[in-house]
């Protein structure tokens, strides 16, 4: 019996990425070298952007006369020589299924992420941690090559399959030379120059060892803006854990309103810092202080119509969109804004008393939603731009507005609680500092976030405040869990379940209006229609 083993290659990709083309290139190369080869795949509906894979087996030398190698159709765990993945989590999936063996498998994987729906749809950060995949890959692959495939493809105006082919060839695992690969790309006839460029760049990056872990996205392009010099003395009065976020916070608040408002921001931080006293370096307290500085800045600069109009009419924005949408020289860009201001937004901007009256009227008459008007505002045209600027110029009015008043009340309530808890229980304070995370979004989302905030405050936080001996053991955990639950799904059911575990009686789910009900047989046959 001959003991030559087939060379096995597993390609993990997403449907629609051109994995089939890559598959064909490799088969053509093998055929060109006179090597017996077989390729299989499981496209099916996975072609519609789901995970899919391609599997190739070949002999490294031509078969003896008359002999036909028998190739397997499925990859076997522990039996794959090379795993090539077009995306990081797909590489993880191959490791998870046992296809990457520490003694045998070379893993060549893209370093970028294409997030799954499950990750994207979370209210907070649902992204799978890249580093966990890298760590698993380093531990379990005989050789791990992490390549910025998306970056190379974009840089050379080509598709990821060409870059994957280059990385594979550059890793020196194929039984044929680089020229053979380039020949089949050329014979393919479509987008040849770009494919060759992407192939070559990936080949070189891998072959000369420059492929290394590129942690896609993380830390990229952090805004360099820090607060103006004049604020330095004031910021220096804050304890160290607060300073970085506070410096960014001051910039944000200044940009949002004025220097008086920024001073209020710093004063509020000073109050919290004073409550922490000299325990500010203790890890839990430090975390509470840093988070409070971060979230207070975001909260004080809540998004209202004025803010949105201001941000949308800045000079830097058009340049950013031109860049993002890859508008070329000589092309004209028109931008249309999708706005839908409603009674709520208008009332929020009006002076306090007037706004409150409008909102009450709308709530009682069921007009809170029905008066929303969808607007397509062309902000690169004169009238559209003027409208944005007019709204942005309302900034001085903001201090007297209904929403401003309500937000400040709410902030004060949270600050007072935080001050007390920093002294009583650093663990609870750390959780409480994070509570404003649930305040997010616009319209309905914002109302739900506000409701979650208040629900948690009225139950868990008030209970802790009301106890003379400080929060009970486990109270901090319960608060953390409630915040996570509020961010887990938008309906608030998870939050109620979480509160129930903490011994709070759950609220009944909000009733839906009955719009149509079939009557049981025998009853009057009229259909009920009511809203």
């Amino acid at each position, binding site marked *: 019996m001959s003991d030559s083993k087939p060379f096995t290659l597993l390609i993990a990709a997403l*449907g629609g990425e051109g994995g089939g083309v890559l598959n064909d290139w490799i088969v053509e190369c093998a055929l060109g070298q006179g090597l017996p080869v077989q390729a299989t795949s499981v496209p099916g*509906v996975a*072609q519609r952007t789901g995970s899919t894979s391609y599997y190739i087996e070949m002999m490294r030398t031509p078969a003896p006369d008359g002999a*036909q190698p*028998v190739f397997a159709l499925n990859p076997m765990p522990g039996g794959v020589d090379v795993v090539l993945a077009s995306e990081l989590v797909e590489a993880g999936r191959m490791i998870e299924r046992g296809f990457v063996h520490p003694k045998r498998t070379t893993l060549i994987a893209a370093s970028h992420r294409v997030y799954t729906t499950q990750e994207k*749809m979370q209210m907070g950060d649902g992204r799978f941690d890249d580093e966990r995949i890298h760590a698993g890959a380093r531990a*379990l692959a005989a050789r791990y090559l992490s390549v910025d495939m998306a970056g190379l493809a974009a840089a050379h105006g080509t598709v990821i399959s060409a870059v994957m082919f280059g990385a594979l060839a550059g890793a020196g695992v194929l039984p044929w030379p680089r020229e053979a690969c380039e020949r089949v790309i050329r014979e393919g006839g479509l987008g040849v120059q770009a494919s060759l460029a992407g192939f070559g760049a990936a080949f070189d990056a891998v072959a000369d060892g420059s492929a290394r872990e590129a942690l896609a996205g993380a830390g990229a392009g952090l805004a360099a803006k820090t607060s103006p010099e004049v604020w330095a003395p004031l910021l220096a009065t804050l304890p160290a854990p607060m300073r970085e976020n506070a410096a960014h916070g001051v910039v944000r608040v200044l940009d949002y309103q004025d220097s008086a408002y920024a001073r209020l921001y710093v004063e509020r931080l000073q109050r919290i810092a004073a409550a922490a006293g000299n325990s500010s370096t203790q890890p839990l307290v430090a975390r509470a202080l840093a988070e409070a500085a971060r979230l207070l800045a975001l909260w004080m600069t809540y998004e209202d119509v004025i803010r949105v109009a201001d941000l949308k009419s800045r000079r830097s924005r058009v340049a950013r969109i031109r860049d993002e949408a890859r508008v070329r020289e000589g*092309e004209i860009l*028109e931008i*249309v804004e999708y706005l839908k201001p409603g009674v709520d937004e208008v009332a929020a901007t009006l002076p306090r008393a007037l706004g409150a009256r409008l909102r009450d009227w709308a709530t009682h008459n069921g007009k809170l939603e029905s008066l929303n008007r969808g607007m397509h505002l062309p902000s690169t045209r004169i009238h559209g731009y003027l409208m944005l600027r007019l709204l942005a110029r309302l900034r001085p009015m903001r201090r007297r507005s209904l929403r401003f008043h309500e937000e400040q009340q709410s902030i004060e309530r949270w600050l007072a609680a935080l001050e007390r808890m920093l002294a009583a229980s650093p663990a609870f304070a750390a959780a409480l500092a994070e509570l404003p995370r649930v305040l997010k979004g616009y319209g309905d989302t914002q109302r739900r976030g506000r409701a979650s905030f208040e629900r948690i405050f009225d139950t868990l936080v008030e209970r802790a405040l009301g106890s003379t001996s400080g929060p009970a053991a486990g109270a901090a955990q319960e608060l953390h869990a409630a915040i996570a639950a509020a961010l887990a799904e938008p309906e608030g059911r998870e939050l109620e379940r979480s509160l129930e575990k903490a011994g709070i009686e759950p609220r009944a789910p909000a009733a839906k209006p009955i719009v149509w009900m079939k009557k049981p047989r025998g009853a009057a046959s009229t259909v009920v229609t009511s809203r």
Partner: protein
Amino acid sequence: MERSFSAEIRSLSLGAGETFHGEGILAVTKALLQSGVSYVGGYQGAPVSHLLDVMVQARDYMDELGVHVEACTNEASAAAMLGASIMYPVRGAVTWKSVVGTNVASDALSNLASPGVMGGAMIVVGEDYGEGASVIQERTHAFAMKSGMWLLDPRPNLPTIVRMVEHGFELSEASNAPVILELRIRACHVRGSFVARDNVKPRISTRELQMEPAPFDYARLAHPPVTFQHEKLKYEVRMPAARKYIVDAGLNELFDGDRTELGIIVQGGLYNNLVRALQALGLADAYGRSRIPILNLNVVYPLVPEQITGFCAGKRAVLVAEEGQPDFIEQEINTILRRADLQTKLHGKDLLAMGGEYTAELLLAGLVRYLAAHAPDLPRGAAEGLLADIAGLKAQATEAFSGPVPARPPNFCTGCPERPVFAALKLVEQDIGKLHVSADIGCHSFATFAPFSFGNSILGYGMSLASSAGVRNFSARRPVAVMGDGGFWHNGLLSGVSSALLNKGDGVLIIMKNGYTSATGTQETISTPTSESRRVAEGTSATGSEVTIENTLKGMGVKWLRTVDNYKVGDVRKTLEEALTSPFEGLKVVIADGECQLERQRRIKPLRAKMLKEGKRVVRTRFGVDEDTCTGDHSCIRLSGCPTLTVKTPTDPLKVDPVAHVTNDCVGCGLCGEVAHAAVLCPSFWRAEIISNPSRWDRFKARVREAFIHAIRPA
């Protein structure tokens, strides 16, 4: 059609001695032509779609040969087409995805198999089983057995597959029975080569007409009393004839080995993975030379008792490798051995898994157990080590990742017209509460995945409305049935709509009118827009002027019928709410109109490239999100799930949760903006219209606007 097969069409006409390189299912297509088929039909579905697609696209060449190609509207109509071979000496083949297609076809198949055939009749089924399958996990084998049709399961290499197609027709004619050729998913998509033969022009064809119809012959009708005679014929005449042909033509293969006291009987389709498992044990080499004798069954029904007893006689124990449930082959071999009073021990599902795909890893585990019991002298250490390694690797991965990596099921394409309908339905649920949704087969079944998670049942292709017939009578709130136009024409019109009308059923049916059967590769239906209207539509939806579905429903007596433009989420929402709350009792149909985006992009891309090259004015649209105003709550994603609407790390150091972001693959369908409006989400979305090769007027306007804005814009 989604894919173009111009290169493949050329390889269909290869002559004797030339080498065919390509996919398994296309090798079958070529083998059909080499066998001289007169007609080919079928219904598309992975993994066999390409067989029909390539033939439809190769119409000119088919016409030259005289071969008729029919894109049937369902598997029943395809199966019935084989009726041509009952009375005429013509060869025909049909194809579909199994087991679901065989289920639909089974009425016609029973009535075909009973009288039997004169010309060779072949059914090529894609056995959609194991990894990559999209249907329930059942075997086609049962249909072959119950109807007396012969079942081929060739070794998955192209020369064997082609040989089995050619022999299949001979076998069919030698025994007057239809033959099924089953190919698993990977075998359909396997790339390999074989040496071609010349194609054969059929003797009776679209070019060589049969001048007189066949004479009346009651014995060839599936009608009593001859059906009683058919049953006798099947088992007294046809099956013995088939067995004789199987032996004479050497369809099953014996691979001998030196350990003659052992033996493995394997379904042809599993042979390659079995050899891989034997290689891991050091019992076979790369070329398949095995130390354990193997009886490879390219014909898995009927078995030839003499062949089985001949192989098993004198052996200590034989292992049967048979995938799926029930274990028909193992049971039959047991019967054969008992009848022959052979004492050879028989193993199968006792050592191998009860269900699931038989991968090399799984076969290896079974072989190790088999050898431990019957050949303890053979070394198993390396294989056992490998199996332990595999288990360890999977555990280590889960530990390193602290849990499973996120799943990535298929999703609606970028810009898909069906996504907005489910976004609207989600908004409707916010208003009036949870709905019972009967889902169906098609792209719209992706709505069963996140972020929509719609669907209380899936009962088969075109069955959604029928499956809500019971529910709608005991539900206080009206149930919703979702169906594609593919499913509507496949089965939904009759099983669902006509039945609901007859019974005055009060429910809501949403029909996705995207113009094609899109999950299978955008094949055409009776309501596909004409090529002229598609040309005129360019990149816009071409389905608006196509009203075959509307007319059909009106003609049948549907009184409540609305057509909505899918991308107008607010309108869709209003219409659905109206349907769900209307005092009108009876079937309410909402036709959700929007052409498949794959087809639109296929038209617009080359057109746009051409216009750009010629220096003509072209406007492209895409959407985006203002990072500054996005608060990272992702409610837009929960209402869309578009692949290009994703998240990224914010550049703002104070924000920690990722913000929404639109990638450059955006096709500008407008759903993001519509959803932001309909759900009153947030003001972060913008639409960019980018004008390439602008006209003078464009440039003038832009200059004036820029000058004005520049003058008043703050930094």
